[in-house]
């Protein structure tokens, strides 16, 4: 089963189990442009799998109104870039509702905001903005990296009583993998994707696969890298990350999103504060994603690049340690 089908299965199961679950957004009735809603309107009807106008603010705002009045909407935004047309509804309405009205209401909605560089889609369809949403109290932010996690975490997100910003990666839709039902992952739980002892590498979303490839090559060169798939960006699994970093004494964070003010900075800073260990960030350059392959590649982190950073960090950290 691929990553898109895994999400589709999670949503279908949730809709079968709970009549309050609805999906709304552009083109969901025809299965969604990535196939992530395929077959759902046929099974559940147009009243529950709702094709909407190109009205992002109202898609998200209506979902808030639905959530407040007894439904559990799953909101399709196509790509995170378009969700910027609904930023008030996410940040000022969905995220703030429970708090500013003194707990009178809850907003159990899942906003699907796919992220990521997506072959040749250029500056307005390629961003990874998870750090923006991690910054907003009231939101849960999730970024699944595998079909299994897309199934498990979407299931968990739909069951969650808080608004969840759910960020699938557009280059992962076709990724194949085993999906074991029932659901196995909880929100807020990271996963050790590869055990290691020389360094902890925290990553998420598509970068996990780059990190695993780099870690494999590092192993061949005698460096044992523990790779953690963060899975939930907020609340992030401090316990698992800090336990690992305390053991390896080195923490590297890698993400596709722009490094400057990225979420990796938060993790690196926490590890430095809590453990006093060397930390390093590897993230995208602060440039828009360009169209031509050469420009797009400049915005990506490749496995060889990441491997290079792993080796530099290992050496640099060793140097700092021996100086101390």
């Amino acid at each position: 089963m691929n990553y898109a089908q895994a999400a589709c299965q999670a949503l279908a199961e949730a809709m079968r189990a709970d009549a309050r679950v609805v999906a709304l957004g552009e083109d969901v009735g025809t299965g969604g442009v990535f196939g992530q809603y395929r077959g759902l309107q046929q099974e559940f009807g147009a009243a529950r799998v709702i094709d909407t106008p190109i009205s992002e603010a109202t898609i998200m705002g209506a979902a808030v109104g639905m959530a407040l009045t007894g439904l559990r909407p799953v909101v399709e935004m196509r790509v995170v870039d378009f969700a910027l047309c609904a930023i008030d509804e996410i940040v000022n309405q969905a995220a703030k509702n429970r708090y500013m009205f003194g707990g009178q209401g809850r907003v159990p909605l899942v906003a699907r905001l796919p992220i990521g560089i997506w072959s040749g889609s250029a500056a307005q369809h390629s961003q990874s903005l998870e750090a923006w949403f991690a910054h907003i109290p009231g939101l849960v932010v999730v970024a699944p990296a595998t079909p299994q996690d897309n199934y498990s975490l979407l299931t968990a997100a739909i069951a969650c009583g808080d608004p969840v910003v759910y960020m699938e990666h557009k280059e992962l839709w076709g990724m194949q993998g085993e999906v074991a039902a029932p659901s196995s992952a909880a929100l807020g739980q990271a996963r050790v994707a590869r055990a290691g002892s020389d360094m902890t590498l925290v990553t998420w979303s598509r970068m996990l696969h780059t990190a695993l490839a780099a870690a494999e090559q590092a192993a061949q060169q005698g460096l044992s890298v523990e790779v953690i798939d963060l899975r939930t960006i907020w609340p992030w699994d401090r316990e698992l990350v800090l336990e690992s970093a305390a053991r390896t004494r080195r923490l590297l964070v890698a993400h596709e999103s722009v490094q400057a003010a990225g979420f990796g900075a938060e993790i690196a800073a926490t590890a430095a504060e809590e453990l006093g260990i060397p930390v390093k960030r590897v993230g995208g350059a602060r440039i828009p994603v360009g169209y031509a392959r050469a420009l797009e590649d400049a915005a990506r982190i490749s496995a060889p690049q990441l491997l290079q950073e792993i080796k530099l960090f290992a050496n640099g950290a060793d140097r700092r340690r021996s100086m101390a």
Partner: protein
Amino acid sequence: MQASTPAANASHGEHLLSLYRTMARIRAFENAAEEASRGSVAAFGATSDAAALVRGPLHLSTGQEAVAAGVCANLARSDYLTSTHRGHGHTLAKGADTTAMMCELFGRAAGSNKGKGGSMHIADFGVGMLGANGVVAAGIPIAVGAAHSAKIRGSRAIVACFFGDGAINRGPFLEGLNWAKIFELPVLFVCEDNRYSATTATDAMTAGEGAAARARGIGLPAETVDGNDVLAVDAAARELVARIRAGGGPQFLHALTYRVKGHVSVDAAAYRDQGEVEQALESDPLKLAGQRLAALGIAAGRIAAADAEARAEIEAAVAAAHAARPPEPAEAYADIQDTGAGQWR
């Protein structure tokens, strides 16, 4: 609505008296809030005073009470309402408790929002009042969603969606009306046209024929009404609400009124002509309703009693708000999110 026989006059008078009571309660509530808001915020040339009991921007609907009273008289408790930054009247008319409301304005733990929202976010979900909103036009999509939800759930609830004349220049107005129409949702859109958007006359910023014409352009039946005439608002709302309840889809009410006070309580509104204000005061909704009540044979004593009762109710609310305690600082960390609760850094 014309009443001619003495019996019809009498029942008409009683109905108007009940609308008058709602308006008098809103007026008394806002007068008291205004009083407590001196120095509430440093804006419009005013300086803030740390001693202000009602803090922050306080948007008064003084002079606009007939819109809230007339529309909400046609709503059931189980119906929903979304409001604006200027939402005291809508909240009160929908049935919220004035003590909880005043406590909220005073920032008390016993406030309707536990002191977390204040005037601009006043809400009482218990009476279907889904919130005032600090963002212009933001209530429109939420109202549409609540109506869509009612339709999906097979509920008979309808939604009243209030917004100002300035809100019709924001995108959610177009999006929300279009959405309500294509899905034929049970929403009454109420444009409360007080002619101002903060310090700017809305007319100069609005192309075309205005709110009702825009609504008609999207296919919504739209009525324009004298928003200072509570009977006219009530009658128009009754008709539109009946159509919505009969499955007629979204309807639009454009209520013409006037913002008697400044944009917020500390705004002296020096940017507009005082003559305009004085002229508007001639058609103050309480004054108009009082005259009508007299004409319908309601004794002056009963009108005075309605005023006195409203004042007494609000005085008690203010006294309760004075006596109430502020929230514990720990409350700042409650009701944010369950997932990751406790992880604040």
